[in-house]
């Protein structure tokens, strides 16, 4: 459903991403992982229509995207700059639904249902500044769920929360996307996270970022923070992705070459 064709972006003379090609199928969860400064965010912002790529195309369902595409939601890393502090959680989640032509009652019902799915039904009337970081990011996820996008972009969504909350949110994401059949593109610098969450892990090289690895993740579901992470397949894949991220040539015989 999403296709990137030779997507490139240059800031002045700095090439952030260079000819990225990627195809994402409907319902797939694809993690993009790469070292810091590899243009991950540039890639996501190009797809979201927040910047205009200087080269190449973004195709959604075969049609080139110009500006912010319809039916797309983003969960940003910095929830404090994405949730509006002058609105309650419920109002924040319901706000994007105004475009969907729903009346107030139905908007609130949909927002409430989404908050329930992320376990925040009791905090609907709270304001963002009354919540912990993890709760705020749950509200962001609820906002994306209520919007029912075809494509969900997540930009280091769990980068600003503590490790325990991070695991909870990873599981929450897996659970709700299985439930909604949503296509997700998740960007992270965390190798473990990419393997744990993704159906597929795409590795970007250092800037100018380009695809250096595209690995299917074949782990039995449903995934579990303890058991999945101790599986041989998980450990092997994590090492593989780790090597690619560090710019080493992948080698399956245990001998690494630089």
């Amino acid at each position, binding site marked *: 459903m999403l296709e990137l064709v030779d997507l490139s972006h240059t800031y002045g003379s700095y090439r952030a991403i260079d000819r990225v090609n990627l195809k994402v199928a409907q319902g797939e969860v694809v993690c993009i992982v790469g070292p810091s400064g590899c243009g991950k965010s540039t890639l996501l912002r190009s797809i979201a229509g927040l910047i205009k790529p200087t080269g190449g195309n973004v195709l959604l369902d075969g049609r080139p995207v110009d500006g*912010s595409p319809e039916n797309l939601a983003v969960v*940003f890393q910095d929830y404090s*700059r994405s949730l509006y502090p002058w609105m309650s959680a419920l109002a924040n989640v319901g706000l994007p639904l*105004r475009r969907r032509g729903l009346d107030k009652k139905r908007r609130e019902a949909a927002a409430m249902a989404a908050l329930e799915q992320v376990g925040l039904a009791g905090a609907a009337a709270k304001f963002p500044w009354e919540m912990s970081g993890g709760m705020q990011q749950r509200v962001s996820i609820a906002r994306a769920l209520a919007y029912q996008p075809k494509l969900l972009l997540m930009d280091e969504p769990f980068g600003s929360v503590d490790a325990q909350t991070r695991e909870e949110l990873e599981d929450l994401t897996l659970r709700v996307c299985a439930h909604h059949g949503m296509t997700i593109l998740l960007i992270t610098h965390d190798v473990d996270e990419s393997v744990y969450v993704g159906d597929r892990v795409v590795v970007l090289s250092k800037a100018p970022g380009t695809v250096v690895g595209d690995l299917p993740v074949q782990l039995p579901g449903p995934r579990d923070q303890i058991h999945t992470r101790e599986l041989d397949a998980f450990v092997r894949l994590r090492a593989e992705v780790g090597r690619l991220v560090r710019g080493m040539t992948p080698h399956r015989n245990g001998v690494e070459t630089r």
Partner: protein
Amino acid sequence: MRRATSGVLRFWIVPVTLVLWELLTRMAGSPFFPPPSRIAGQFYDMWLSGPVSQLLLTDSALDTFGPSLGRLLAGWTIAGVLGIALGVALGRIRGLADYTDPVLQFLRALPPPLLVPIFFVLFKVGTPTQLAVIVFGVIWPVLVNTTDGVRAVDKGFLETARVFQFSRYDILRRVILPSAMPKIFAGLRLSLSLALILMVVSELVGSNSGIGYSLLYAQQSYDYAGVWAHIVLLGVLGLLFNALFLVAEGRVLSWHANARRNV
């Protein structure tokens, strides 16, 4: 407990000042500086000796305060609405501020009282002129602060609005304006105290009603206790308006105070 004590301590200063003032003015015995007890007496006779049905206000108080407060609030409201509207336009429409800046800076530098003769020619003598003076004088803090506020909206807030494809109206009404509201309120508060000053000034120059006119009348009748009573009245009004404004601000901007406290 400690807060209560500090409140009592703070209010000690009021009676102490009054007693000192009373002693000094009695010793000096100057007709231009009547003691506060006489000022209070005059204040009471002029304005506070009315019937209970009028909240003790005399007819003279109602006739004097009514027009003044009406002009003050009307002028401030008009300036607020115009200032916010123009400020949003200047802050959001790229290039507009660059074109209009020299003209605005010029207009802003003009002391509003000097424009009274021109407003006399443009409008009729009386309320329209006074309103014009107030609006022209107090629009600037609102305008400048609104422009600043809408320019400083966090990029993250706007990007979220773009991704979720908010309508232009929703972006303005639900993202930009609330985000700029703390600055807009700071401007409105400044304007309110300016409006009180300009209200009096405009009534001193060309008016036959209101507090300013009444002040002038007392002065011309050599009623110095009366003049001082007017000064006290203006001080009390200023305090009152500020207090009311802070209550309103506290309600509208509670999210802002709390959000900052929790960061």
